[in-house]
């Protein structure tokens, strides 16, 4: 399978929108045609070949090398294939993507996986604020797919998330699962303050007991839910720690809330 390698010539001073560089949009184009694509950077337009050196052939893989922390919307709207970012990535990674895989070896900015409907994002470093959250003006954040963060996530992870799974190996900031509509968030590290604020439905599965619990969540007791076996089996091929959840004998304490906003969400704390 052919792949296109984009090596950043130098770190850009301004943010650049990389949304036009998806596998679907580049299919069938020559290297020269790809190089001629203009990208938005503030009020300017930048040619791709001015920003990157290009190698390979557009195919089912795009590899981005260099400090891409100023490059936003990498993999936005992609429907398939693989995007590999060697280093950091900017904001809105995988915005609205419906399929394919994005792998980032470093950390990513804010709003990663916002509006994502399918596919998979793997982040080896940290994720910024509003991971899988709704961008301003949108009513829903992530709506499907799987996001794995091996590091930490910022504040408001899963804000207005509607469907899909977000798993964070490290810690999350404050207001995790705020205004969450549905879906599943798993956190192996610590969570910040006010987890589940205004949460309507959905599941937050915590491997560690949080230091504080929101007052608008009520304790429902401790149970071995069968659906956790299904989750554990669905995750068993994922890298550690995500694939290590036992598929039997897991008991959790269930808190339901946010009672100030529908109150059908749940925070499950593994015992």
């Amino acid at each position, binding site marked *: 399978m052919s792949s296109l390698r984009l090596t950043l010539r130098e770190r850009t001073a301004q943010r650049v929108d990389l949304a036009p560089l998806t596998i679907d949009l580049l299919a069938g184009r020559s290297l020269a045609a790809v190089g001629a694509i203009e990208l938005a950077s503030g009020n300017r337009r930048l040619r791709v070949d001015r920003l990157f050196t290009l190698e390979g052939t557009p195919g089912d893989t795009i590899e981005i090398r260099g400090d891409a922390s100023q490059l936003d919307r990498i993999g936005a709207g992609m429907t398939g294939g693989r995007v590999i970012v060697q280093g950091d990535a900017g904001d809105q990674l995988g915005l609205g993507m419906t399929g394919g895989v994005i792998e980032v070896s470093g950390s990513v900015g804010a709003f990663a996986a916002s509006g994502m409907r399918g596919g998979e994002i793997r982040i080896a470093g940290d994720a910024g604020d509003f991971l899988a959250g709704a961008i301003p003006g949108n009513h829903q954040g992530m709506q499907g797919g799987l996001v794995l963060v091996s590091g930490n996530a910022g504040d408001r992870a899963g804000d207005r998330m509607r*469907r899909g799974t977000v798993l964070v190996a490290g810690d999350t900031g404050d207001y995790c699962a705020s205004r969450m509509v*549905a879906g*599943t968030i798993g956190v192996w590290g610590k969570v910040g303050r006010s987890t589940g604020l205004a949460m309507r*439905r959905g*599941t937050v599965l915590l491997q560690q007991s949080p230091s504080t619990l929101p007052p608008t969540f009520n304790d429902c007791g401790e*149970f071995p*839910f*069968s*659906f956790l*076996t*299904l*989750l554990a*089996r*669905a995750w068993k091929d994922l890298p550690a720690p995500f694939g290590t959840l036992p*598929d*039997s004998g897991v008991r959790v304490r269930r808190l339901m809330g946010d009672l100030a906003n529908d109150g*059908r969400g*749940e925070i499950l704390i593994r015992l």
Partner: protein
Amino acid sequence: MQLNGVLIDDEFAEAFGMKATRVIITAQNLTWAYHAATAATGFATSVIGCGCEAGVERELTSAETPDGRPGVAILLFAMSGKELAKQIERRIGQCVLTAPTSAAFAGLTEGEPVALGKNLRFFGDGFQASKQISGRRYWRIPVMDGEFLVEETTAIMPAVGGGNFLVLAESQPQALAACEAAITAMKKIPNVIMPFPGGVVRSGSKVGSKYKALIASTNDAFCPTIRGVTRSQLSPEIGSVMEIVIDGLTAEDISKSMRVGIQAMVDLGPSEGVRRISAGNYGGKLGKFHFRLHEIMAP
């Protein structure tokens, strides 16, 4: 055809196209999975009076079930997808949702989806929660013993119902023993059920009746106690006849099942009172699947 001294009639079983699904029922242990499965497949011997034909297909180990608990697979057959959907919902709702510790999952994924827990979820009165896992949707319905986990839909597929064969034996105990041996062997074959009690039916029927209200009546040609006053197909040494009816997901499954069942009877032989094997049909005009005994038992 003679096999081990048993006469195999040059007859065929006439079977019909049906719709079928498989549902996996799990519970805390096999006993309670069976309680739920037995209830869900109860009163399901014939579509004529029961709406569907159903039975336990096989036991499942913890490794074979979605939730890692022991379970059983049941198969349900009906004459139309609409009727099958109605029966699934009614039976899972009344017999599995109600059974302690149980859960229900789709046993078929390819085919037209029909509701399994899709409407049962409303029993949760607003406290139900859905969870999409690996592209499949499940409902978690709060119940008094914990939570009833049920998959949203199951799939239905075209299937075959009404495969059959008859054993003609010297006595009633010998006919029953032959059927028991056949059922034991046939239960090892996947994708089939024998929907009658214990897998055996003693009241084989013919089409029509002297009474206008009835569409079917006793198969008098095979009833030994009236052989002197009807057009009997029984020779003097036959004292009892029993039938095994098979529903299967495919015609091949039914053929395979009939073969092992008949072979088990043949193995008993005339010394155990097994004299003849026959099959039931309606002249071949009603059902599109014909299972010829000689072809099925061909070496």
